[in-house]
């Protein structure tokens, strides 16, 4: 109850602004200033959401599965890669350019390759998600690891700490803030990844649903899927932000953050 109240207090401005925007939007569409088949009115989206709630729930679940799976793999792979790059300079020299290149390639152009390798299983969507989400994780983790204070390392070395102990007790905790920035970005990106993955070929999921609805010219359907995708992205970001907050609980009474 109390936390609901606080949430409201924190975001009432946003809620107010959103409400104004929604009313404006509804008005623009109702008065035919924007055609409803391009941008349906919020009320229409709500109705569509309610009417198709069961179907949408199923698709939502499918997308969530891909997103979470892709995000987890990206997190594990991204952190491992960043750590490997941090420990072995030659890995950095070899892999960093490749990681960069992987981001500059428009994924849709690669879709035939994805189809070739992964078919239309869940793994093609997971692969796209991983590809999109792991870049911010790698960059932010690697940047974070390189931002540690040399004096602390000296202190631990003076205690006879081994390489991995120094890593574990100093470098890793010091990389956490930057890492969490990356995780927050990646959480949002993995929803986008799953959506794009579904566009490359699928038979379920919100991305699939939105394309299908677009194909049958049902704008309300498209936007109700988009709404749910946004919601999903927001929830994942929120979860990551919450995890970050818990992780840095020790900072609570600290003035500088």
């Amino acid at each position, binding site marked *: 109850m109390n936390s609901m109240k606080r949430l409201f207090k924190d975001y009432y401005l946003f809620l107010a602004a959103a409400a104004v925007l929604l009313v404006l939007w509804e008005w623009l569409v109702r008065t035919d200033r924007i055609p409803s*088949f391009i941008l349906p009115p919020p009320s229409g989206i709500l109705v569509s959401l309610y009417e198709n709630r069961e179907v949408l729930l199923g698709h939502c679940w499918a997308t969530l599965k891909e997103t979470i799976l892709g995000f987890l793999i990206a997190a594990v792979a991204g952190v491992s890669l960043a750590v490997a790059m941090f420990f072995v300079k030659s890995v950095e020299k070899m892999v960093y350019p490749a990681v960069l290149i992987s981001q500059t390639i428009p994924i*849709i152009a690669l879709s*035939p390759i994805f*189809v070739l390798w992964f078919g*239309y299983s869940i793994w093609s969507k997971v692969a796209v998600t991983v590809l999109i989400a792991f870049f911010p994780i790698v960059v932010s983790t690697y940047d974070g690891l390189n931002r540690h204070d040399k004096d602390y390392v000296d202190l631990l070395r003076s205690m006879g700490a081994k390489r991995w102990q120094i890593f574990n007790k100093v470098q890793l905790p010091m990389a956490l803030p930057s890492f969490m920035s990356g995780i927050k970005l990646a959480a949002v990106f993995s929803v986008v990844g799953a959506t794009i993955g579904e566009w*490359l*070929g699928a038979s379920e999921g919100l991305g*699939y649903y939105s394309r299908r609805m*677009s194909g049958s*010219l049902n704008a309300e359907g498209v936007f109700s899927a988009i709404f749910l995708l946004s919601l999903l992205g927001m929830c994942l970001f929120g979860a990551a932000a919450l995890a970050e907050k818990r992780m840095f609980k020790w900072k609570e009474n600290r003035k500088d953050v």
Partner: protein
Amino acid sequence: LLFLLNACSSADTPNQEAKGNLKKVSIMLDWYPNAVHAGIYDAIEKGYFKNEGIEVDVKMPAETNDPLKLVAAGRTDLALTYQPQVVLSRSEDIPIVSLGALVRHPLNHLMVSKNSPIRSPKDLEGKNVGYPSIPINEAMVKTMVKQDGGNPEKVKMTDVGWDIIPAMAAHKVDGISGGYINHEKILLNKEGHDVRSIDPVKYGVPDYYELVLVSSEDGLKKNRKLYQKFWNALAKGQKDVHDHPDQALNVLFKHENKEFPLDENVEKKSLQTLLPLMDSGKKPFGYQDLGSWKQVSDWLIESKMIKKKEDPKNAFINFEK
């Protein structure tokens, strides 16, 4: 902000007075320029449009359904789209009207690999069919399987997004719906993947017009005369294509070479396939038949693609010769 953006993009709204008193007419193609558009480019090159007092602005879409929406929203004057989509959009209250049929028969055939055991639609039971995000393809496959005596529920349909050719070539699906006999089939053959195409008309799908020229209801009311002129010029171009296909193709190639060289062999074969399907016989070019519209409309209702039945009479017009 919204209005501002609207205002600043109003430069390309229709019917602006162009230089030399030419009326500007914009047309959005159904896809990137190819052989099917040879008539348009021929008419531009030969000045048929200019003779009618028209300056043509050709645009390309991002998505198959963008032309429909943007023509209805007044962002483009004319657009090329598919007959079933016109019926579909009218039932979704997107007010567009078909002005003429460019391609008179389905190009969209069901395709299976030549060495696959599938001979007729009912063999698809238990198989996987890919289609590119347009649910009408689903309806087509189901109709064909049912007509052939199979159980449509047993056919698995997968949305393969943009990549119907790789899906087929990499054997990730057993058949595809949504490929054109004048494009995908030729390309697949060129890459050494011979395919067998099954005409949907033979299995209960109405013989619909694959490509039609549309405008919005409002636009038609305001500019009927102008569009008639446009159509006349286009008909002249199409006649050139019919009489001298190679010459007309060269016009297209020349135009596209600047930014995007086309594969000349593919387009030549494509046009060979297209010409008989574009021929309106004794009727004027582009003539539309009420019967055809009725059939399509009934089929869409039957296959539950649309809920609201509209009078098919309002969906099209025929220009007087």
